């Protein structure tokens, strides 16, 4: 069984600094990490591997530095890693990112399961996994919060949809985006981390893809353009209320009552 995991490198946090002219977030000096949702996707793959003995291949699209994400994945237990990196891919939006990712996986192997995070913490669109499913023409299960059963031939999962849970079973190939709550990711192990430094990372460039038309990738292949990124306005300061014992409890109860009453009215 073969599992692909999509992992993206994102800034560890944002100071809300933005280049006034370009509208692009200033990342200089900020550390980068693997998108936390994608570490959970990798953990899901590792759990499936424990049951099915699958081989796990990680794909990340980004600059050379994004290699760190693959090394981290190796130190958690991933078997192979591909860095998708080419000048032609720069400036990709969801359309171009998902197209590049689907071209990349297809160029490597026939994967049974593709695992994605629910969303990234920078782009934050939560659309890439659905778009990849569309490009590859395979079933897509979004917001998976539990693996009920997994075998060599099929997988049965629970999805957290708006206000309801849905149980879905599918044969392979398929693509899953997982909720953060599905598993607590393991810590990288020292032994694997030591060996990960020497482990090979393969690079995928435009030349390696089936479709080599650069107009379909990067800025040229993007249907949208971000005009401005800005931190949301701060909400107004609130008063601090200090009350003791019963007074405090009564006060909180009053807030609850008001909140629930107004909700009921809305319904």
């Amino acid at each position, binding site marked *: 069984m073969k599992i692909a995991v999509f992992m993206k490198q994102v800034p560890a946090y944002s100071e809300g600094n933005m280049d006034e002219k370009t509208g692009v977030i200033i990342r200089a000096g900020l550390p980068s990490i693997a998108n936390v949702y994608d570490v959970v996707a990798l953990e899901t793959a590792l759990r499936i591997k424990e049951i099915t003995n699958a081989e796990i291949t990680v794909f990340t699209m980004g600059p050379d530095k994004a290699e760190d994400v693959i090394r981290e994945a190796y130190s958690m237990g991933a078997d192979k890693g591909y860095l998708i990196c080419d000048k032609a891919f720069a400036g990709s939006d969801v359309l171009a990112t998902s197209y590049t990712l689907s071209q990349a996986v297809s160029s490597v192997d026939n994967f049974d399961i593709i695992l994605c995070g629910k969303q990234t913490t920078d782009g934050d669109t939560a659309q890439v996994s659905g778009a990849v499913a569309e490009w590859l023409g395979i079933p897509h299960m979004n917001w998976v919060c539990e693996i009920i059963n997994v075998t060599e031939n099929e997988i049965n999962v629970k999805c957290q949809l708006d206000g309801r849970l849905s149980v879905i079973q599918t044969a392979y190939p398929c693509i899953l985006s997982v909720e953060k709550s599905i598993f*607590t990711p393991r810590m*990288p*192990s020292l*032994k694997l981390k030591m060996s990960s430094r020497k482990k090979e990372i393969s690079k995928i460039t435009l030349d390696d893809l089936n479709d080599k038309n650069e107009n379909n990738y990067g800025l040229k292949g993007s249907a949208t353009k971000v005009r401005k990124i800005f931190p949301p306005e701060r909400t107004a300061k609130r008063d601090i209320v200090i009350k003791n014992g019963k007074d405090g409890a009564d006060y909180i109860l009053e807030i609850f009552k008001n909140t629930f009453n107004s909700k009921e009215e809305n319904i």
Partner: protein
Amino acid sequence: MVYVSQKNELIFPISEKYEEYLIDESKFMGNAESISFPKNEDEIISILKIMKEKNIPITIQGGKTGIVGSAVPLEGHIMNLSYMNNVKEYEILEDGTGTITVESGINLIDLKKEILRIFKEKALFWPPEPTETSATVGGIIATDAKGINAFVYENIQKYIKELRVVRASGIIEVVSKEDFNKVIGKEGITGVISQITLKLIKKPSEIWGISFFFENEEDASNFIDAVRNDVPKSETAFIGAFEYIDKTSLNLIEGRKPTMAKIKELPDIDENFECMCYIEIHGEDEGIEEIAGNLMETAAMYNSDPDTAWAVSGETEIEKTRAFRHAAPETANLFIEEKRREDKRITKLGTDMSIPNISFLDMIKKYRDGLSKYGLNGCIFGHGLENHLHVNILPNSYDEYLKGIELIREWAKYYLENNGQIVCEHGIGKLKKKIFEGMLSEEFINNYKILKKEFDVDMIWNRGNIL
């Protein structure tokens, strides 16, 4: 007598809303009549003048994270410096390092943010870090706080370029380098540190944080002793921290983990593990790997399975494992806070002693024997390579609390007789003064008395600390 200035509103009478300023992380609670939050040196001097005229003692407060009650007032006035938290100036030096001049009330969280904002990819830092990030620079200097990287980065003096202190006379003194030691670690008894120029150094290019787990304390102790006897080195890297955390601490942490934002996403620790060692290696990747490999082999010799050892790198991940280590004192303090709610006389009872000449194994056995002899529960964590552990007694009643004091005195006696140190990084304040009554040497006390005479004959600053 309460003196409250009406006109300029610098001084406020103590009321319910200021109650949190009567206690620090030692959970020792005091009393005061008034409080102020000066915003600059002029205001410090105005407040001092008013208090001096009425002979009202002033207790200086930073972040109130101290654990010996040294920022807790017994009476009089509280001068809280948390509003003095600005960066005044900074300089980028030719060698790629820099200096930053700050008001003393800036805490470590804000200091780090400011350093990142100003020096950006130069990647600089101020090494003295007592793990608790709400501690202020003034408080850190006043307590000579150290933290987990202390044995590498050594003396705090190395990282201070200039110190300004408001003396009891109302004069602002730029303290000469030779006299830094009359301020550093003196728990505010010689004046208010108002402004400091900090020397920043380059961050190591990489840090690895490795956690080894052990199924029994003896194995872990033997591992620590093996490393102490032959500390692994490489040309481009070094061990930057070596911390021990025992089972009781692990249980306390695991119990509270779901509510602790910084660590709640870490996986649960296997119940079979009795203790862990958290080790940081700082330097270049290759050197780090060399030391990590060496440690892995030694740990395996003492039955720590390298497959179960965690290894993280990168600032964000290291912050998580540091937060896990920090949760050891945090959860011990939370335990005490719960007990204090039941009985106001209960405070933190933690040791801060080190002893160079015995093995780690013998030291921990001594602590275990003491705890079982007195029938007490305690958690143990701290600095492995320096034989400097913090044993926190976890009393269930005031009776056990009193027994705990007796036990700590017994340990202290042994340490003093065997060339150990009974106060290392937390200070003496009001709590350790009580616990170690009659045990601190005359010479030690006299040194403080001489300083008091030189800088504050009227005992205006921090009355009740040490002396």
